[in-house]
């Protein structure tokens, strides 16, 4: 085990089980968002929580604005953690953009993953009329990035470039409030560009690992039509419609989220056992 990756991505391991579940936070957030969900898996699984570089308690000095302005940078974080912990056949639970990060990671290294759980996934946020409705125009996303910048608590007393060149910035940033949901413009602009302007519609066609789409009601970020597009186009995918409203059911409705995931995993293992019996 390489301590540098463990530290870099602030990896935390818990649970009693053998099979691994990895929880990957969504856009701009750190592993704290799983606090009402992940404990429910500790009895039966080895639970792994981590932060992407630039978020939470990750090593900010490892943040490379070029690497992390593309989803491949975040995919590499996932693959690094998996390789480092010798993970095979893990269940990957990804919220929001992490669903796509998980999919891209699984396309590259299918042996690392057994199932992907996608909470509020979207392969492409931008509308591409007439055949695709992602929910957003480019202008909306640019306005969103402006809004993030204005909500960045630290911006008034710290110029981003001087921060970037300041080796002591880790200390500065750690004093900022709400670290679990960062609006730090350097990190978030890179992440936002990586996730909001990406188009993974071709990648979902090549999905190699079975997946569950958890579709919330009234999710403005990942509307129902996007979830349905995914379930139609992604091989081996199952869609579950949740009662939870919004984009963060793991926070607003952790119990429903836990049950939806467990139900799917049970049905998966049953069908596997079924196949196994059939094969004898």
């Amino acid at each position: 085990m390489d301590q540098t990756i463990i530290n870099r991505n602030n990896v935390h391991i818990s649970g009693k089980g053998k099979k691994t579940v990895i929880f990957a936070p969504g856009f701009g957030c750190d592993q704290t968002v799983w606090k009402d969900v992940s404990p429910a898996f500790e009895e039966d699984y080895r639970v792994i929580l981590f932060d992407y570089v630039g978020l939470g308690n990750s090593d900010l000095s490892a943040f490379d604005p070029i690497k992390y302005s593309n989803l491949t940078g975040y995919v590499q974080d996932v693959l690094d953690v998996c390789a480092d912990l010798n993970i095979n056949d893990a269940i990957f639970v990804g919220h929001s953009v992490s669903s796509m990060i998980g999919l891209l990671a699984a396309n590259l290294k299918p042996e690392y993953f057994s199932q992907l759980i996608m909470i509020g996934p979207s392969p492409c946020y931008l509308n591409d009329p007439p055949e695709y409705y992602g929910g957003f125009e480019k202008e909306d996303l640019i306005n969103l990035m402006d809004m993030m910048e204005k909500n960045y608590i630290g911006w008034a007393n710290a110029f981003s470039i001087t921060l970037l060149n300041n080796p002591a910035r880790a200390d500065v940033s750690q004093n900022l409030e709400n670290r679990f949901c960062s609006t730090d413009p350097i990190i978030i602009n890179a992440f936002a560009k990586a996730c909001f302007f990406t188009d993974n519609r071709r990648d979902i066609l090549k999905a190699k690992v079975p997946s569950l789409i958890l579709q919330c009601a009234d999710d403005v970020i990942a509307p129902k039509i996007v979830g349905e597009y995914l379930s139609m186009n992604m091989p081996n995918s199952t869609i579950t419609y949740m009662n939870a409203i919004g984009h963060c059911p793991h926070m607003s409705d952790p119990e429903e989220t836990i049950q939806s995931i467990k139900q799917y995993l049970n049905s998966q293992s049953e069908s596997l056992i079924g196949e196994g019996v059939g094969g004898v």
Partner: protein
Amino acid sequence: MDDIIENAPCGFMTLSANGKILTINQTLVNLLQYPSSEPLIGKHFNVALSNASRVFIQLYFFPIITLERYVEEMYVSLVAHDGEEIPVLLNASFHDNEIICAIVPMHKRNALENELIKAKKMFENAYSEKEKALSELEAALLTLKQNQLELLKANQENAKFKLDTERDLQLAKTIQETSLTKDIVNDKIKILSYYHASKALSGDIYGFYEITPQKYGIILLDVMGHGISSSLITMSLQSLFHKLISQGVEAAVVMQELDQYLHELFQDNQEAWHYCTAIYLNIDTKTQTIEYLNAGHPPAILQDQNGLQEELFATSPPLGMFKSISFTSKSLEYTEGTRILLYTDGVSEALEINALNSILKNSFFQPLSETKALILKELENSENKFDKYDNDDQCFILVELSS
């Protein structure tokens, strides 16, 4: 709702945990330009949010309010009934499974913040421009240093080349000087000479030969220019006149042959074309006659035993200049004690006019070697006065005839 809250100077609203509007005060209804609260109650908060704000609320507001139970100074953009965007600050707390929101419009403050952000971006751009310019400067400096190193290396190579060339030139000079004949001193004739190259190699060349015990041939040539090219020509001319004069060929024929040789040499190469001036004396000590030819050369000075001077002017144009010239020699008789000075223009031009004549005259009663010493002294003095004349080759020959 309490009348005070209803008309408070800020928007007030309660939401269900999943974002549905439960209550809304009149101030906020007015702000959103709805006729009443009725169309808003029961709707998701999204109904009053811009597209970007809807996403922002999902990504930040709900996670933060859920986890931390409190949201402070969140900037979002509301959308009024008529579509107008209203920048607001949103404070919220989580209480009894409801989200309580206080909303303050911030049109003016927003404009100020926009200006601040603009200024900050300008600063950042300027900063990164500066950084870029700096790194370009550093790269340019590095290139400059590399160029300097290369230049230094080239310089060293050049210096080595120069050293090699100088060594070569010194060797060539020795060879050229070796080809010069030695002074002749006997009871009938004294011939003394001086030879100095402006650069390592000279365009001047001379030779004097005892053809028979009473016949002496003396030649002085000055190839135009100086340095390597001129000296090469002197060497080829030297081997030719050495052969001709030693064999006792007629004076006119010697000049004819040298002239012919130069024409042939540059026949197919006009660029390399050189001509030369020459003076040739054929002295018969028995008959006491001097036969001479002067091909465009400075006149030799002849001084008889009475100190009377005569100049042996050109009898033809320089050698190698015009084709098919016939060379005819002149003759004169001499008496004992006659002295002759032959020189190249490098000598005469270094000195004042008639300086050579004066030296010759004034040293009339002194040995020939003293005359030579006086000329050299004069040349040495003039070197300081007329630096430029050091740029030409200098050569002279002094002859003293006895009976």
